[in-house]
Structures are given as structure tokens and as C-alpha cells.
């Protein structure tokens, strides 16, 4: 009666929400699954979000349930710091070559945190998009999974220091660890390599990277988070001053043939959500959202209406042409057009949030798999047995990515059509 589970495991590339979903859904159908994540912890982009739209709930709620499903299911093996080097073979019998970065912190780690206390090296905190620092041995987030510290190889000064090794009571640190290579057999492969925020510095005239008070939408997520660099207080990065005026620039790079020709699908909702963060943290602050079209499909429309009706929230159809550092106030001066009013606007603001779009993280391919001209994987172009899911396939929101990953799990376990 029961369809037999495939002999070889399903290999899932990418440990963000799409990859995690594909892995647990496949495993709960009886398949063995190997989940590969290039960073030291699972959760991908969503782990760095403060809240989800439209419920304004914490992403860790859903992640936590999924981590439990992973922890309690012996059919799922997780490799972190694992990068796919090569994919060979065919459906039912792929070989996936994986480079495992040195595992300098091993499974003995109890996450007690003594190592970080003694580590003398500070590094830029990439988890917080460069805002703030961590030690060279760090946990990006108190709830990170696996619960294990990670060492930044770039920052660590190595054995000549060795303070962490000395203080660790559990023999969890080995600074001599070397890269290893795994050759995995795979029945099928799910490509869930996710997205990177588009580099705001490429958007000429918006002063991203020039004025500290021009930040990207993903940085705004970290600013709003209590675990973030500002402990959740919404302040200007330049001087820690409370924000009184915030401007959002939609389609920062998206829908632009010089940058990303497609729509990134989530940025309108992300900015509306971030407007809600501002409303909560600084109820008197004025909020302006400059947009081309507000794209809140389906039931998200309700969220749009709710936020648009909030006091101090103004939506303006028009694009921000220029943003400059304001030497007088330390803020940002924006120049924009108001298309409906037919006029040019100049405004001084404390914080400009540019709603940078999604760029596929594996736009140059993964393990020899080729992406399309926009960097996405399309199932029709992939070999049988290889399925793309989530934002590796299309710009889409979390809920859609999860649907997509569930569909990919079905195909990966049972060998469906693309």
C-alpha cells in the first residue's frame, strides 16, 4: 500500500525557509533527507526578519516548530557550512560533491558562551548587515539552530591566541580543523538557495553606503529587532537619535531594466510592515512611502488598507530620484516626484529606507546547474529529479515559498513532472 521511500536520500540545497520546509515535508513522507546550508546556522533570510507580514508575528515561531521537526526526525541530516561544488548523475542516482568548511566548533558545544567572553577579536556582524560587531567566535542569534557557536575564519587570529580553546570545558573547539569533502548520493535534489538583497550602492543617487541614514529594508528588519544592533529602538544609525520622519523608497532596483527588471514581489508589503514598526516604536513619526504601484495581492490587501489608514502614514505615487546627506541635520534630503499631484518634492527626513529587491543568491548557478538570465532556476530547464523552490525559482513571499517548497518535496520524493 505505502509507496516505498526512495533508496537514496533527497538532498536539499539551502537551509532557509524553503529548504527547511522541503526537507521536513519530504522526511515526513518517509524519505531520508540531507539538508545542506552554506552558513553556520539554518533559517536563511527569514531568521533575520523582525516580523512577518501580515500578522506581524515573529518568524522564529514557525522556524521553532520546523526546527523541532528536524530535531525529532532521525531521517533528516543537517550539514552546515556546506557548499555544493558539483552535481553529477541522473534522477535516482545523483552524486553531490559538498565542500564542508572547517568545523572548528564541534558537536560538543553547549552554547554556554564562555568562548565569546574571552575572544579578543571583534568582527563586523554580517547577520546584522554590518551594523555592529560580534566576537570572532559568535552565535548570530540566541535561538540559532544548530545551537552551536561559529568561528569566523577570516577574523580569528588562530592558535597563537587559542583563548577560546583554553576556556572551553567541553573540548568543543579545534582550530586545526580543515575543509573536508563529502560525496553524497541523492535520489533527487531541491534547489532552495534563496535570495540576497540587491546591493543598494548600485543605485546611483540614493547615497546608500554614503549616508549612514540611508539603509536597506533588510537592515531595517535588524534595526527593529530587539536582538539587533539598536536593541529594537528605532534610531538613526548615524547618531542614535530617535527618528521623527521616515521615508521608504519602493522599487529600489526592482522593475528597473538597469538593475532588476522584474518585480521582487515582497517589497511593498515589507515597507508597509516596516511602517508598522515605526508606528509602534515612534507613534509621532511621519512616514512616507514612495511607490510606483502598491502590490499587495490577495488577502494582503487588508494589511495594505490597515497600514495606509494609520495616522502619520502617507503613500505617494512617485519615484525618489535623489537622496543626499544633509550636513545640517545629519539626516537625508530626498528629491522625488509626486505623480498624482504633478509636482516635485524635496523633503528632509531622518531615515531613508530603500526597499531593495531580491537577487537570487545562486544567480551564477550552483554545482554546475545554470540559472536563467535573471539568475532564477526554472524547473523546465533543470534535469529530471532536480527541482527549484522558493526564491531560487521566483521572487515570492514566505507563504508562497512554503507552498512551492511543499510542491517541490512531492516531486523530489515521488519523482514528479517539473
Amino acid at each position, binding site marked *: *500500500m*505505502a*509507496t516505498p521511500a526512495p533508496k537514496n536520500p533527497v538532498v536539499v540545497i539551502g537551509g532557509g525557509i524553503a529548504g527547511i520546509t522541503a526537507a521536513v*515535508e519530504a522526511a*515526513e*513522507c518517509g524519505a531520508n533527507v540531507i539538508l545542506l546550508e552554506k552558513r553556520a546556522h539554518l533559517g536563511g533570510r527569514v531568521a533575520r526578519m523582525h516580523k*512577518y507580514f*501580515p*500578522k*506581524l*508575528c515573529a518568524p*522564529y*515561531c*514557525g522556524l*521553532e*516548530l520546523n526546527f523541532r*521537526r528536524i530535531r*525529532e526526525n532521525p531521517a533528516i541530516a543537517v550539514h552546515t557550512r556546506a557548499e555544493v561544488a558539483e552535481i553529477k548523475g541522473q534522477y535516482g542516482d545523483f552524486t553531490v560533491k559538498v565542500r564542508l568548511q572547517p568545523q572548528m566548533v564541534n558537536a*560538543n558545544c*553547549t*552554547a*554556554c558562551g564562555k568562548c565569546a567572553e574571552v575572544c579578543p577579536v571583534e568582527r563586523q556582524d554580517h547577520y546584522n548587515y554590518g551594523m555592529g560587531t560580534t566576537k570572532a567566535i559568535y552565535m548570530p542569534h*540566541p*535561538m540559532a539552530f544548530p*545551537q552551536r557557536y561559529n568561528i569566523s575564519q577570516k577574523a580569528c587570529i588562530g592558535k597563537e591566541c587559542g583563548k577560546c580553546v583554553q576556556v572551553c*570545558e*567541553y573540548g568543543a573547539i579545534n582550530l586545526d580543523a580543515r575543509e573536508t569533502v563529502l560525496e553524497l548520493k541523492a535520489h533527487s535534489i531541491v534547489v532552495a538557495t534563496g535570495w540576497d538583497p540587491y546591493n543598494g550602492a548600485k543605485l546611483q543617487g540614493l547615497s546608500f553606503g554614503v549616508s549612514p541614514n540611508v539603509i536597506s529594508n533588510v537592515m531595517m528588519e535588524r534595526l527593529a529587532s*530587539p536582538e539587533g544592533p539598536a536593541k529594537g529602538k528605532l534610531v538613526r544609525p548615524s547618531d542614535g537619535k530617535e527618528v521623527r520622519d521616515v521615508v521608504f523608497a519602493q522599487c529600489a532596483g526592482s522593475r528597473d531594466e538597469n538593475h532588476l*527588471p*522584474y*518585480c*521582487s514581489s515582497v517589497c511593498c508589503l515589507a515597507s508597509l510592515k516596516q511602517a508598522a514598526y515605526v508606528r509602534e516604536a515612534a507613534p509621532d513619526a511621519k512616514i512616507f512611502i514612495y511607490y510606483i*504601484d*502598491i*502590490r499587495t*495581492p*490577495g*488577502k*494582503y*490587501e*487588508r494589511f495594505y488598507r490597515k497600514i495606509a489608514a494609520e495616522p502619520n502614514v502617507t503613500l505617494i505615487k512617485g519615484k525618489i530620484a535623489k537622496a543626499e546627506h544633509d550636513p545640517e541635520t545629519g539626516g537625508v534630503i530626498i528629491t522625488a516626484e509626486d505623480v*498624482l499631484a504633478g509636482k516635485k518634492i524635496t523633503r528632509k527626513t531622518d531615515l531613508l529606507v530603500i526597499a531593495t529587491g531580491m537577487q537570487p543568491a545562486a544567480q551564477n548557478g550552483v554545482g554546475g546547474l545554470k540559472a*536563467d538570465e535573471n539568475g*532564477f532556476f*526554472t524547473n523546465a530547464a533543470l534535469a529530471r529529479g532536480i527541482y527549484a523552490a522558493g526564491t531560487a525559482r*521566483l*521572487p*515570492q513571499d514566505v*507563504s508562497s515559498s*512554503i*507552498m*512551492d517548497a*511543499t*510542491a517541490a*518535496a*512531492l*516531486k523530489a520524493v*515521488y*519523482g*514528479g513532472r517539473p
Partner: protein
Amino acid sequence: MTQVNAPRVYICTGCDIGASVDVDKLCKIPAEFGVPQAKRHPFLCGEEGLQYLRKEVAEGAGRILIAACSGRVYADRFDFGKDVMVERTALREALWVSTPNDPDTQLLAEDYLKMGIVKLQKSEKPEPYIHQLDDTILVVGGGITGMTAALAATDAGKRVRLVEKEAVLGGFVRKLKRRFPIDGTGNPVETNIVAMAEEVKNHPAVALHLSSEVVSISGQPGEFDVRIKTPEGEIAVRAGAIVQATGFRPYDISKLGHLGGGTVDNVITSARFEEIAASGRIRRPSDSKEPSSVAFIQCAGSRDEKHLPYCSSFCCMTSLKQARYIREQNPDAKVYIFYRDMRTPGKYELFYKQMQDDDGVFMTKGDVVSVAGVDGGVEIVVNNTLLGGTIRVKADMAVLAVGMESAAKNGGALHLAYRQGPELPELNYGFPDSHFVCFPYETRRTGIYAAGAVRHPMDAAQSETDAAGAALKAIQCITLAAAGKSAHPRSGDTSYPDIAFERCTQCKRCTEECPYGMYDEDAKGTPQPNPLRCRRCGTCMGACPQRIISFKNYSVDMFSAMIKAIGVPGEEENRPRVLILACENDSMPAFEMAAKLRLKLSPHIRVIGLRCLGSMNMVWLNDAFAKGLDGVLLFGCKFGDEYQCHNMKGSELASERLSKLEETLGRMSLEPERVRFVPIAIDDAYALPGIIGDFMKVIERVGPNPFKEFAD
């Protein structure tokens, strides 16, 4: 005296546990419960510690209490096979939020150890409910979603029974001339729906019932009994799981009178326009003239509080596609598109760009005020356009891009013979969706999954994805059920509720409150459980005033005993005791996060994690106050419209139960302030010290529970 198969207790002294409490004293606690003295180890989760535990297991330890870190940490390492029951006491996290080597901290650690021992003593191994199950997938609806789900299930080796009310397969997509391009480039593409319908029809694993409807569905996953009305008569069949793919209805044009809907001949819906285009040359209805100008009115009925408040998601792309049809038929024809926002997410933007580059297509944002019949054609009045002010545009005909209404809106698809109603519960706007965002298939009727436009406004491409996702969940549900395991959110749980029927008073609370409609009722109101529908949240156990519902490893008695195990110092000691019953999905991780952040919490709290706050039985509050505890906090998920409870309404039900609390407290002459429900999200760690601190002040104000001196 040592009990047979008594718990063995192992205390880890690592992670500062040993440095924060008197472990020797802790080791003697088990003796109070007839359990051998606890053993200590410096590093239980390390290889040496695990080897030590494995040796203990080999020597007969069948019930193990690990007093170390939380059960969220290294569950896999402390798994010693299915015959060994393991309970974890989160000593480490409790100590991280407390002052080391303080007498109150010692009492706290002792209480957690006691509760852990009692919990393990009161726990039995669940015996999975294993039945021979049917694994046929019943698909209701034969449009693109239903057919995709059917073929996905057959690809997975399953048999499928597909019920379609029309005489042909294909649904809405069958009426299309073409589909818009999924990757946004090139022209609209063939639907291939006829070939797909042929494949379904001829598939050896598909039993197809056309011109048929589901009459009733009873039973449970793996054992659904389905009656279907077919042209040949009514049949009774079995199914294992169900995909509801009954699609949508285009919004009724006659409700859009101000846009000429139903009154002006040359005003038609986009659905009608598509049919006309699919049947040959595009001609307008009034005089069969091929139009040289066509106006599209977007959001006709959508994004409108008076009609459909939501966005229907597919109308912008549909109008752009139909604009292309017109431009292909007549390169001189003009197309006007009046929109509020053009919504072409993702790669659809590329198709929008193509159409923007077409000189014959004029698009403007604006609010369409009216569409009227003028000179045989139509005149459209639009306010607030980008061209400035009001404009009037004449065209040969107008197409209203009407939105979608869920076919589930008026019911009639599944006819479930369930106590809680005949259809999937709706989330909002008539769409039978479930936990939105993280778990799109977290259905409230186990084994039944809605997919496609019936569930959420979505286009054909997304419906195909959704169909495959729902097919997976349907197959997975049967796979799990066949192994006696629960589906999400407690996937893998093999426990299920036992009911002591002889003491049932037919109060119906369990049958009303189960979030998954697990219980049916007989004529007298006695609950009729369907264990394979159960998701093990324990809401029925919490609801039952007779306390006759329990799980082998999760029972009313277990928690009563744990509460009674809490040490209550005498009034003169000025050490209040507050019990916190907390949801283990969100509130417990919030506590752990507080521990990781080394936030300090009152040492007077005792926290017990529950599967869901919905499983909270009111008798525990009685137990707590009778024991002399001073207050009770209930931590559950936020409820209401934007609920976060993974069992939909567990925390809501628990807080409703509190309304009956005053009676209990009144009987005991206790102040109502002694009990408080607080919604807690997983990221509320930073708020915990304040929430708990505030409550401790309330307890200080109302004073000690006078029952302290009577408690044993």
C-alpha cells in the same frame, strides 16, 4: 522503598549548573518520591556522558530524567530507543535566569526536579493507533488544480478518485484562449488543458466521476467514507485523504451596475471576453462588430469594501493578456487599461513591460466612476488619472476585470458528516484557508486540504504549485496516520486521547472545542472520537470538566501531581509561589531565550510547559490554590483575527475558561487578580521580566494565599 521501573535521575553539572546550586542536596530529592538517589555527571551531552547513560540503560534504566538543559537541546542525543522513556528538566535554563547559590535558587531547582520526577512517574508509553488504511486520494474538482493534484498523486503511486460536477474536465482554464506566460517573456501560451484532461481521463490509476457531486463524507484520514452522486446513481467509496479544488466563481457582473454590468450590452466580464476570444474572432456582443477600441476596467468589484475587499491577484495579468489578443487581431485597435495599481509581481513584470512598450495600449491609474452605453459603444468616466483630473474615454466595448470568489463561499462541496459542520472552516472572505504564512497546509480538518483558488485568490500557475503541495500533504497525512503518528504541528506524536466514557456527562465541551473537529456525537451527545483526525493538542483534555480525557504521556492527573509536588514555604517565609502554565511552542522558547540572554526572572515562579494552552484544565488552578500557591499566570499565543496559535484557538479557549474562574476563586474566597492570562509570542523574551515582575507585585499586594497553612 524503590518502585519497580522507577525513574532514574541524572543531573548534569556542566554549563554552570554545578556551580549554581548544591547538587549533593539535589541528588537526595528523588528519595522523597521512592526513586533512587540522583547520579551526577559533569557533561551529560558529551560522548562520555552519553556512553555513561547508554550503560545505565543497558543495566535496566527504562525511565530517565535528565536534569540538564532544555529538551529543545540535543533531543537526538538523549534518544535511547523507543523502549526508554526520557524526560528532560531544564535546570540549566532555570538557573541562568536566577541568582547562583541563593536559597531561593536552590528551592527552584529542587521543585523542577520534583516536577520532572512526578511527570515521569505519571507517564506511560503511548501505544500507537495503527489501522489498515486506504490511501486513495479523493480530489473534489476537476479544474487545473484538481487535475494537477490528481496527476501528482498518481506520479507518487497513489490511486485517485476525482469528482467533477461538470460533464468535462478543465474548469475555468478550459475556457481560456491562452494562458499568460509564466516567465513573463514572449506571448501568452497554450493552456494544454485538453491534453491534461485526456491524460487524467485515460489514467489507469484515476477513477473519474464526471457530472458528479460528493453527497457526504464521514470517517477519518485513511478511513473516509464517501458517498458520491453519479449519473449512474449514488456510490459509496473509501478514501484516505482529500484535496478540495473546487475553484472560484468570477464575481457577478450584475452587482456592478455603475460600471454598466448587466445593463450595457457591450460591457462584459473578462471571463466572457476570454470565451469570445477562444471561440474565434473577437466581436462585441451588441452587433458582432470587431472592436477597434476596447477599455479594460481593473479591480471591477475587487479591492472594494462594497464588493470583494481583497485583491483577486490574477486580473491585471489577464487584462494585459487580453489586450494582446486585441492588438494581434487588429494592429490598429486601441486598448485602454484603467487600473488602481498594476499588479504584476515577479517575472510577470516583464510581460507588463512588453505591453507598456506597445504603442496601441494606453494605461493609466485612475478611479473609474462610471461606464455607460453611448452611441452603440461605451463611455468611461475616470477620476484622478495621471493625466490630471477627470477624463472621458469612448470605446467600442468595455471589459470588466472581475475578481474571484471562492467556490467554497456558499458551501456544498464536501458535505462532511462532522459535528462541527459540513465544510472546511473559512479563515476570512469565504476562503477555507488555514494558518497563514508559515504553514499553508495546517488544515483544521485533518486529511482534507484545500488547494488553488478555492483557498486563496491565485492564478493558474500558483494553483498548480498549490495542487502539488496539497497532494503531498494528503499523501503524507496517510503515511503518518498509517504509522500511528500525528500530522503537523505535533508531527510524529503517537499518543492519542483515551476517554473514560463511563463518567461522561455529555456536556459536549470536547466535541465543540476540538480545533480539528475530531469528535462527532451520538444522539445523546456522547463524543464519538475519530482518533486519526486528532492532532494531539490536548484541547479536549483541557475542556473536559469531568477530567476523563487523557493521553498516556499527557494527562490531567500528571499535571495535578506536578503542581502538588511544588514546595510551598510557610507564609512567614515570605516566599510566594506563582505557577506559570505556558504554551510550549512559543512561550517556552521565549523563556529559553530569556535564559540565553541571562535575563533575571523572579525565583518564585514555577513554569510548566503545555502542548497548547488549550489543554489547560481548570482543575489545575484548583490544585494550585489548594496547595497554597499564590498566583497563576497563563502564557499562550495571541488570539483573534491575527491569531498565532498553531491549534487555531487553544489560547482563546483557555482564556474563555477563565471566565468560569471567579466562581472557583469565590468559593475559596480568593481574589480574582491571582490568575492572569497573558498573550506571549516567541520573541517576547525581553518582556518576561516585566510581565512576571508586575504580577509578583500584584501577589505581594493581595498577600499570601490563606490556604498555605492548610496545604499538606
